[in-house]
């Protein structure tokens, strides 16, 4: 039986809701369209039913659109979100994109370019069924990369997976560079291939991008497959554990960190650490600092937390939430602040993988 996708429109202006509902009824796939006049009502509806797209106003009483979006982002990560507002301010556009919205439209633009707006919404409804990319990222991403190379294309592929964003640069069908999770070049490309889900979009070419990848796409993919094969046919558990430890310690040594603590979300599980003894105090502070930062971020609608940094004369600390864990990495005071975030991301990735 064919099931229709559902769209939820959130706006405090009930006349606009009716107009919008009638307008979206023109969508070719004839989705079910529901409306909500408050953020609380919208969240309750999202909890009760599965929606494909949320179209959200920003300026609303009590709970504004950014607050709704920050909650939606966390609770319904696969929901496509569109901001439709009358607020013509770049700051709000930036903040909305920072919260991970898929599209930002001004109400007057939507009325002037109605067909384009409908096409965009229709593409959100159809994308999952059309190419399965969102649910099966790995297979389709490889296909896309191969196609870019075979077609001798010059473009930039932007890949988004949850809060992570990566880019792959192509020039005349050759892989030129990649950037992901603080890494560049081949390392970044390998990381992207490991991502389990995400979306991608093709951006205009950047021919001036410096080349950092010299291997062919096929060679990199073959290496990646060999690595996967190694995981599928591993050695003994002890060997694997030993190898993992060596890789983790090598990453710490290469980056020059003083210590690292990995704190699980559950308090009953003991933190893992290297380079520091007695992590109780540090763990207590990290849990408090992260909780505080998340609370502040939510109060201010400031977007996802990147990191918490702290410093004194003896060292610098960088706290990074990642995959349900909290990492605290200690750096010497002379470490260059500008690079610490990227270095910490690299380290935590090695420690967490």
């Amino acid at each position: 039986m064919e099931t229709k996708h559902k769209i939820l429109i959130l706006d405090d202006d009930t006349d606009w809701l009716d107009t919008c509902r009638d307008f979206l009824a023109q969508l070719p796939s004839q989705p079910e369209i529901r409306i909500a006049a408050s953020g609380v009502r919208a969240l309750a509806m999202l909890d009760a039913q599965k929606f494909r797209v949320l179209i959200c106003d920003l300026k609303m009483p009590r709970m504004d659109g950014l607050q709704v979006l920050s909650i939606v982002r966390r609770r319904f990560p696969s929901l496509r979100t569109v901001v439709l507002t009358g607020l013509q301010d770049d700051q709000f556009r930036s903040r909305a994109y920072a919260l991970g919205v898929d599209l930002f439209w001004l109400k007057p633009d939507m009325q002037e370019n109605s067909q384009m707006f409908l096409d965009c919404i229709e593409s959100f409804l159809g994308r999952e069924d059309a190419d399965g990319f969102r649910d099966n990222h790995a297979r389709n991403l490889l296909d896309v990369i191969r196609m870019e190379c075979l077609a001798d294309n010059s473009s930039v592929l932007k890949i988004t997976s949850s809060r992570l964003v990566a880019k792959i640069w192509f020039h005349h069908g050759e892989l030129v560079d990649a950037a992901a999770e603080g890494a560049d070049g081949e390392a970044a490309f390998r990381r992207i291939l490991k991502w389990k889900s995400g979306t991608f979009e093709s951006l205009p070419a950047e021919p001036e991008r410096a080349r950092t990848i010299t291997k062919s796409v096929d060679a990199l993919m073959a290496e990646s497959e060999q690595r996967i094969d190694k995981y599928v046919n591993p050695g003994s558990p002890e060997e694997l554990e030993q190898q993992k430890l060596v890789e983790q310690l090598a990453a710490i040594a290469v980056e020059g960190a003083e210590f690292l603590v990995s704190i699980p979300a559950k308090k009953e599980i003991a933190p893992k650490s290297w380079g520091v003894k007695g992590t109780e105090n540090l763990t207590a502070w990290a849990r408090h600092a992260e909780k505080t930062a998340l609370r502040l971020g939510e109060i201010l609608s400031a977007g996802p937390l990147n990191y918490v940094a702290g410093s004194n004369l003896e060292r610098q600390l960088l706290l990074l939430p990642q995959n349900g864990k909290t990492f605290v990495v200690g750096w010497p005071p002379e470490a260059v602040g500008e690079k610490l975030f990227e270095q910490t991301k690299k380290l935590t990735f090695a420690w967490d993988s």
Partner: protein
Amino acid sequence: MGFLNWFSSPDPRVHNLPSGSFTVDRHGKVMSATVGADFPASLLHDIAWEILSVFKEARTAQMPLAEVSLDFAGLQVSARDMQGGAIIFLSPKNPLATPSPAGAKP
């Protein structure tokens, strides 16, 4: 007439991200601020309390910090400890202007 106000809904609005700096004493009282007057004072107090608590917890953990920075996608909150109080800087960011996908820098 105040009675009627109970039934009126609050004005719809979206808060701008705060920009500027302010100082707080050890009790969380805002001493001076360059943050726009339209930014709610209650939120300023909330920020102050949360930041002071991060410094306080660090002292409790026997690793006192001189500076703390909370980096969000849209805003950076930086603070310097001032004998129990703090000076706090609020700097909104423009993620669209970020040149690299690697993200912001501390």
